[in-house]
């Protein structure tokens, strides 16, 4: 799944025209072909070789392109990418691991609040969440009344224990993601004694909401006003750069759920292609 949009960048199509019909032939670089096909190339394959810009291209027979959309690569400068990588690739330790993967929500977020959460706090959080989501094309947020309809739960210690993994903690949170690095469930539990007023509770909920949109890392580079910063501010706000980082994370112009190595490789190749040939680079996102 992860490889599909990446490899399709290197697929090369030739249209053979005849009087009656058009046949589309798809080729792949020999290096890429060998990575995903375990069977050796046979004589028939070699007869169909084509040469394109010093590369040997192998004919892919009966290639059926899955349904999906082609989206232009979204160029970003190196400074932006430097910060994006620090935020989106949340390494387990302080050292950079090229295998760390970015995470994102595939489906809309449906928030359930336990009955202990005050009406005003619910209203303020939903207003904040919807305002953030309004900037992001592929993200929706709504409130649900029934816990079974939710994929995002906010509750206090002392309430019903909605998330068994948080049973021994008064304040904590938990995110679930699948093998495609798609987040599908979130829980935030707060200790109402520690966060003794609505202002403190709302602050924690807003902070977690942003973090949970991509299992983001809070970094020490940004001033405390930013939600991606690792420090408190009474003037916390969604900055212009915060919005840009979120928009980019959910943009179709990048591949989702990739590891850091793939992400960096893609950007390097795409930028080189843009620079050398000044041609548009596309990503293919198959529908699921």
């Amino acid at each position, binding site marked *: 799944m992860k490889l599909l949009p990446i490899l399709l960048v290197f697929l090369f199509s030739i249209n053979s025209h005849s009087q009656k019909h058009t046949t589309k032939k798809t080729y792949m670089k020999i290096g890429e072909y060998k990575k995903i096909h375990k069977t050796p190339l046979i004589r028939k394959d070699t007869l169909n070789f084509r040469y394109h810009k010093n590369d040997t291209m192998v004919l892919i027979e009966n290639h059926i392109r899955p349904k999906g959309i082609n989206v232009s690569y979204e160029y970003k*400068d190196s*400074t*932006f990418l430097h910060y994006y990588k620090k935020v989106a690739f949340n390494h387990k330790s302080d050292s950079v691991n090229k295998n760390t993967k970015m995470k994102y929500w595939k489906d809309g977020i449906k928030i359930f609040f336990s009955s202990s959460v005050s009406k005003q706090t619910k209203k303020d959080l939903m207003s904040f969440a919807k305002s953030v989501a309004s900037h992001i094309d592929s993200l929706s947020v709504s409130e649900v009344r029934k816990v079974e309809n939710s994929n995002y739960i906010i509750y206090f210690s002392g309430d019903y224990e909605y998330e068994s993994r948080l049973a021994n903690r008064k304040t904590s949170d938990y995110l679930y993601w699948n093998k495609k690095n798609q987040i599908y469930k979130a829980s935030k539990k707060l200790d109402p*004694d*520690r966060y003794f007023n609505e202002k403190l509770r709302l602050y924690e909920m807003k902070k977690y909401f942003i973090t949970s949109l991509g299992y983001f890392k*809070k970094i020490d580079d940004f*001033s405390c006003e930013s939600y991606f*910063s690792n*420090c*408190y501010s009474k003037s916390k706000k969604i900055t212009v750069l915060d919005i840009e980082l979120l928009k980019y994370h959910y943009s179709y112009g990048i591949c989702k759920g990739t590891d850091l190595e793939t992400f960096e490789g893609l950007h390097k190749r795409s930028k080189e292609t843009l620079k050398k040939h000044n041609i548009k680079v596309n990503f293919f996102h198959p529908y699921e």
Partner: protein
Amino acid sequence: MTKTFIALIITSFINSSFSQNNTDDIIPYKRSFSIKKNELDKNEEKILIDNDTLYVNQSLHYNLSHLNSGSYSREKILTLYRSLVFHNSNEKTKNAVYLKQWNDDITICIDKKLPKQVIKDFKTFFSDINKYNIDNLNISFTNNIEKANFYIKTTSKIINEEDYKFDSEEVKDKSLLYGATYDLTTDKNNKFYNGILLVNPSQSNSESRLLRQLKQLFYSSLGNFCINSYIDESSLLYKNCTNLKTISQLDIDLLRIHYGIIYDQKISRGIFKKLIKQSKK
């Protein structure tokens, strides 16, 4: 002689090349980005966004004068300060202790279940701190818990009866933590933004003891300062301190050092040492 002279010049050049010239080298500053039109500085860090450019703010060099002031001799108070803030830890210690500060004005709400005189005396004592105009530290009181970020709360639960072993009843009675405790919420940058001082008045045998306990624990919470028996007896951090009526000059000086700057990054003992060195330049 000529060779020695050249060697000295080279050594001096190397030293000046590798020395830290400003505090940004010691504590990287935090960046905020904003849209500015017609920016001329091409070297400034910038990010291209749709139809606009975000420019990074200019770094603010720290003024380290707070590390050079105080009525006690400079070296003496800084040595004391380091032991109070970093305890016995350094970079090599397994659980290094970092400098901790409030990154917000402190607004205290006191539970009305505490004796009125205790509340009144506590408020008078700590309202006085503001008269000293300590940079970055502002303490105020509110009766509205929704406006507070520090809550002095009573409880009927017994505090620290079983968690601590006291040698005698007298020691237990004098102990600051018998019948009271505090809990501060810290961000990932070692800055406080919320705190609770929990106290069980029934564990105190007098209002005087209760007041002393609250004063000492609150003062300690301002920097997670270590309470000990080697500091001057005039300090609230002195283990067996008496019920002081006004805050001592030493405690004010310690706060001036502690809140002279709200540091952008985590400060370890080693980094603090570099800042002291820098302040001498």
